[in-house]
């Protein structure tokens, strides 16, 4: 093909430019899918329960990721502040992942269990009532808006299609029981998604108001599980370095 024919044909030029540029991306991304060590072998990582998953949807809907990353990087200062650095395995069921790169607020990868449910509820309703110097906006409607979970099964089916092991068949359920234990496997059963969501919301009552299931219930459930699935005391200092 002659140089001139490329330069005088805009359509061809665009297609060839895209092809050349995508080489850079493909070379960086594609190998991660077949290199064995990309996702670390680690116990404890599980899919989100229906309630947590809806909380995650709200996290995304409200744009929390524009100010909060979910990625503790392997530096000493980050370890001292946030805890153990994030593993790829910890976001293997996140679609899309919430790593982010913009930290206007603090990183949230290990926020689970750090504060009480009550603290989260009040902080989300009015951040400055707890932290006068905070610039986070309030989200008071979360506590008063009933959670729409009518489409939770459809959402889980969509996630199943991209690799999250929610179960439909008896066989898939049994496999989940083996992998995650019966208590969790029940939560991952798409056939009972709605009942499981209601059960968790009523049992744990994250927002302190048991009269209805609010969006606050879901969001706090999600925040409280972030970064808590892996028990890092089981692994020595160098364990995860072996995967890099």
């Amino acid at each position, binding site marked *: 093909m002659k140089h001139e024919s490329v330069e005088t044909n805009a359509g061809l030029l665009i297609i060839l430019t895209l092809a050349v540029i995508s080489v850079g991306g493909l070379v960086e991304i594609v190998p991660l899918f077949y290199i064995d060590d990309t996702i670390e072998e680690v116990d404890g990582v599980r899919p989100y329960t229906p309630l947590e998953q809806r909380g995650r949807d709200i996290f995304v809907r409200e744009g929390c990721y524009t100010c909060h990353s979910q990625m503790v990087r*392997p530096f000493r200062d980050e370890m*001292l502040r946030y805890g153990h650095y994030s593993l790829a395995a910890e976001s293997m069921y996140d679609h899309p992942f919430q790593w982010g790169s913009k930290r206007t607020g603090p990183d949230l990868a290990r926020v689970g269990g750090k504060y009480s449910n009550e603290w989260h509820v009040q902080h989300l309703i009015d951040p400055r009532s707890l932290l006068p110097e905070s610039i986070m906006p309030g989200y008071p409607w979360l506590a008063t808006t009933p959670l729409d979970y009518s489409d939770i099964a459809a959402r889980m089916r969509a996630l199943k299609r991209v690799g999250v092991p929610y179960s439909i068949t008896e066989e898939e359920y049994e496999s989940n029981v083996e992998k995650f234990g019966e208590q969790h496997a029940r939560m991952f059963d798409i056939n009972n998604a709605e009942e499981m969501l209601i059960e968790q919301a009523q049992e744990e009552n994250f927002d302190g108001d048991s009269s209805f299931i609010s969006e606050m219930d879901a969001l706090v459930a999600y925040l409280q599980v972030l970064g808590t699935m892996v028990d890092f005391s089981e692994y020595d200092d*160098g364990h995860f*370095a072996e995967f*890099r």
Partner: protein
Amino acid sequence: MSTQDNHDKNQGDKNQVETTGHVWDGDLQEYNNPLPRWWLWGFYATVVFALVYWLIYPAWPIGDSFTKGFATITYEVGGEERTTHWNTRALLARDMQTGEYAVRQREMLEQVAAQDYETILADADSMSFVNAYAQGSFGTWCAACHQVGGAGVIGQYPNLRNDHWKWGGTVDQIEQTIREGRMGFMPAFRDTLSSDQLNEVAAYVLSLNDYDVDSDMSDAGERIFTGMEGGCFQCHGEDGQGLASQGAPNLTNNIWGLIDVPGADSDSERLRLVANFVRDGIQREMPAFADRLSDEEIKMLTAYVHSLGGGQ
């Protein structure tokens, strides 16, 4: 050099410089000048840099693995040395063990861990480390409730900067608070006391803090406070001095953490605030940190908090 000369020179150059040979719209041509030398050599230098980098660091994917490079990092795991190819996680493990600041920090941590509280609080060297380190821990773990400076939130989270200690202000008591958490509880008296009685108790409590109140009311309040009807004395003491083991605050020092009495506009407003508080009771919880923080961290936070408000 005149404008005319410039023009002539450019004309002359144009005739000598090679073009790419492409012609658009009949007369648009493109020069084919050689690249500047400095740019060309800069380009070769980046190529050489890349080649060296590929040899030293992890670089190219091969099948289900990748080239690891010649660079290694050695760090310790449980007393054993482990050497691995260069990667950021191993780098971090080594930095946590032998990095300049990590080593310095560990020395100070060991120094503080070996000292008792009395020595730490008197040792300027230890205290400057404690203040620097614990300020960070406090910001991460405590400030969400007690605020960055430790001043708390009236009505919700205790102020740690004043001389008032609900659960005791000695280092041992503070350490126990951080380690095991606290469950603060005062029952509601709405079913026990009438609204008149509530006002009388409130008047008595205000009188303990030198506010002007009706003396008949406060006398009646005292009888409720110190008698079995209210039973307030069981936690707050006969004289209202409080009882640290119950988390019952001293009611005589005019320090108010849960209601803003000094900020109230009038006598009746003050009376209403206290009476409503007694009517509704309160329950507050401070979480336990023994499982989340190391012993050294708890020790330093204790010394730090003790120093904030003039501990006892």
